[in-house]
């Protein structure tokens, strides 16, 4: 492997470098996410045909399913960062893990609410204690627990370490959410889109779904980077680079 990759990653572990990198990437990720989300919703809400069973109600899929994917994907990213932070004590990894939690909680909340809005017309109920719904609710509570634990310590790094343990323990819930529709006989329908094998969905419905998936991934990057920047200003406030940043901002009249 070319040796600039580990070198670049090593440099990115430095808070001032990460702060600048995140600031440069964030507006592009957010802008692209907005464009893709617009295209995906146009394709999903107006171009794609109605479902033969669910009519237009199925269109909730275009916000519900990408959000559900993100609620699990962000947990995975958070668990990897928490593991790296715990083992190698890399500060940026700890901050990335802790600042992923609010974004994951937001997507989990969207998944539950839009699922409820889909369940009412299709199942006749806003909520049921079905395996998929219950495990997703547990996922929300784990996210909130991680956020709470992180903020309950006076020392931020101590809080990050305690919450990182909770992240790793809570990871057992991720496969439960994913496989709940296969393991138990649930009201919630099975997977429509498959990584392996053919998807059970028309191309005109699939492309808006995949476009929205890309949009939510980019959104996660943008939101995470904004959060890491805000966190670093506070946690690195005693360091020279933050002082310089402040002096530079004041100098330029910002």
């Amino acid at each position, binding site marked *: 492997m070319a040796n600039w990759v580990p070198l670049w990653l090593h440099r990115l572990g430095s808070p001032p470098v990460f702060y600048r990198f995140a600031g440069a990437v964030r507006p592009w990720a957010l802008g692209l996410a907005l464009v893709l989300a617009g295209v995906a919703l146009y394709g999903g*809400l107006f171009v794609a*045909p109605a479902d033969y069973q669910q009519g*237009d109600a199925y269109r909730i899929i275009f*916000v519900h399913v990408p959000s559900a994917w993100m609620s699990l994907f962000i947990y995975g990213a958070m668990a990897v960062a928490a593991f790296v932070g715990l083992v190698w004590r890399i500060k940026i990894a700890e901050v990335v893990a802790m600042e992923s939690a609010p974004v994951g909680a937001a997507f989990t909340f969207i998944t539950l609410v839009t699922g409820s809005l889909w369940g009412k*017309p299709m199942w006749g109920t806003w909520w049921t204690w079905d395996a998929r719904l219950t495990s997703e609710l547990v996922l929300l509570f784990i996210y909130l627990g991680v956020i709470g634990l992180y903020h309950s310590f006076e020392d931020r790094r101590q809080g990050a370490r305690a919450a990182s343990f909770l992240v790793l323990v809570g990871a057992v819930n991720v496969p439960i959410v994913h496989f709940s529709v296969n393991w138990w006989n649930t009201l919630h329908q099975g997977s429509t889109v498959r990584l392996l094998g053919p998807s059970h969905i028309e191309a005109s419905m699939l492309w808006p779904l995949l476009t929205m998936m890309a949009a939510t991934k980019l959104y996660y990057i943008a*939101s995470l980077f904004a959060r890491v920047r805000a966190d670093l*200003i*506070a946690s690195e406030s005693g360091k020279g680079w933050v002082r310089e940043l402040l002096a530079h901002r004041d100098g330029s009249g910002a």
Partner: protein
Amino acid sequence: MNPSLAMGAYGFYVWSSVAVFFIVLLIDTLAPLARRRRNLRELRARIARQENRRRPGTPPSNESNA
């Protein structure tokens, strides 16, 4: 059936879902930007206080921000 703004009989459910998606993510976008600005402002006030302590006799200009 032709897709339309009314979404058949399901307009309320479809548009509420889209609205929830965008409102939650809008809040999620704005919160860290406000937090970063607040952190910068607090740090600026703290530095000003330290400067005042180092040079006694100068007027305590930023004490009120504490």
